[in-house]
């Protein structure tokens, strides 16, 4: 529920990425660029891991960078990207400390940024 494994994976990945940039003193865009560099070109099943990763980063990179610079928590970012959500009747799931205004409040504030990027991505929901 509430995004399940996808939400969990997104929150962990965004959380780690944020901290890597901080600990290794790299910018978010540098970190994002590095994400795919170390993946092998091909897996044993012929999946082009690096190419797939690059596609994903090209797609999500700009919105991620902008959300990182507004200092949103990984929970807010993954809700913004719709990997996480709160189903009717279920409690809100959150791993990181609660942001000021709560997750729905932050999402409301981020609406213009999200609209700008996610409409470009041609995701029907936006």
């Amino acid at each position: 529920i509430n995004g399940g494994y996808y939400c969990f994976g997104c929150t962990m990945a965004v959380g780690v990425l944020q901290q890597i940039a901080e600990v290794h003193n790299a910018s978010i865009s540098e970190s994002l660029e590095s994400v795919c560099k170390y993946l092998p070109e091909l897996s044993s099943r012929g999946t082009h891991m690096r190419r797939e990763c690059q596609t994903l980063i090209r797609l999500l990179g700009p919105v991620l960078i902008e959300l990182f610079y507004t200092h949103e928590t990984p929970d807010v970012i993954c809700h913004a990207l719709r990997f996480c959500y709160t189903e009717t009747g279920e409690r809100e799931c959150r791993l990181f400390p609660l942001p000021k205004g709560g997750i729905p409040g932050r999402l409301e504030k981020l609406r213009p940024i999200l609209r700008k990027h996610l409409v470009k991505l041609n995701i029907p929901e936006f």
Partner: protein
Amino acid sequence: LEPCSWPGLKRICELADSVLDHNPAVDLDGDGFSSVEALRGSAWRGRDCSDVQKNIRPGVIPDSDKDLDANCNGIYGVDANGVPYEETLCPKNLTSRGIVVIGDSAMAHFHIPEQWVDAELFTWESFSHLPYVLENEFDWPMMSSTTGFVNITWPISPGPVHSIYLQMKERNRCVHRDYQNLAVNGADSFDTQYNQKRLSRDPVNDYPLLVLFALVGNDVCNSYPDTLSHMTTPEEMRNNVLKSLEYLNSTIPADSKVLLVGLADGRVLYDSMYQRFHPIGRHNQDITYPQFYDYFGCLQATPCQGWMTSNATLRDLTFERADKLNQVLFDVAKTYKNKFTNLEVNFLECPLMTVLEDWERVHGPGSIHQLVEAVDGFHPNQKAQSLIAQYSWKYLGKYLPHYLGDLNPHNHQIRDIFGDQGGH
């Protein structure tokens, strides 16, 4: 919104789906053994030395192995007198036994590298092994307590490797490559009715087996919020285990041995982790294990609501059920010890519990976290896997030595003539 339909994630999701049938992906002759490593290949079952001939695979009782290595143990050819090595070095009167584990993620050795989650330990290089890890379902059977056989020196999989298979091979080098790890993440005694059918053994033409039936958690572990009502009942457990034993009796060679391994008391996890920071919260010191467990539970993605919870009453109720299921396993082993024609059954209390107790006695209170997987805060880590193997081996040697097969007096000769026997 379906994330798996996103460009970039689509292929990765497909790769994840492709590993879900848990059968070797590359197995040309369909004998259940593969010549490639990942995707349920030789990391899980002994490497097939001919993937185009069904009668050549680990575990076969060979005819003479004069010209070829029918059981893939690396011993073949003839000596100066023309006598086949297999005859002299692995004589027929020697009891040889392969090893099989039917189990869950603890037996498959589930492990997510800490370097992927803790920013301070993070290296980009650690991701170069990502496809290998995905293709092995995040499991490391090649380093597990039952079928481990290799010391991988990657920093993402640290720790010593000891296994029952390696000890059995040390005892009798003729059993080289005769291992099958059929464990599946999340498997309980119901899933096992299906999973056990992946066992590849000819009851007539293959050597007998030592089978570990080790479902140490999932009959009390699930992700439902009303977790208690989804746990296996004692009646269901008895039914499932008996069905499994009947199935094994009808499909594995005579003189095989089965060890029913008890469920773990997972209360120890919370007790040893609750004050510690999860790797993702170490840098900012803002996420503890109870917070991580509760988040996992909130998404209903947790492997175990019953153990991974800050609710002490729920943990105690989970223990009560686990204890009842252990009683069932104990009773079944006692009642059916010698009732099956082809196998003997015995019970072993979950060795992890003894390992943890011993560790705490030596290393002091609060030290148990050193044996728990840091990322999931749930599974036994590499060090624990190795200690489980050492404890289980000692136990078997002391109480059930006939489970281990015979000591081969020709081990030195085998080593001198055949070296690493072709490796794994």
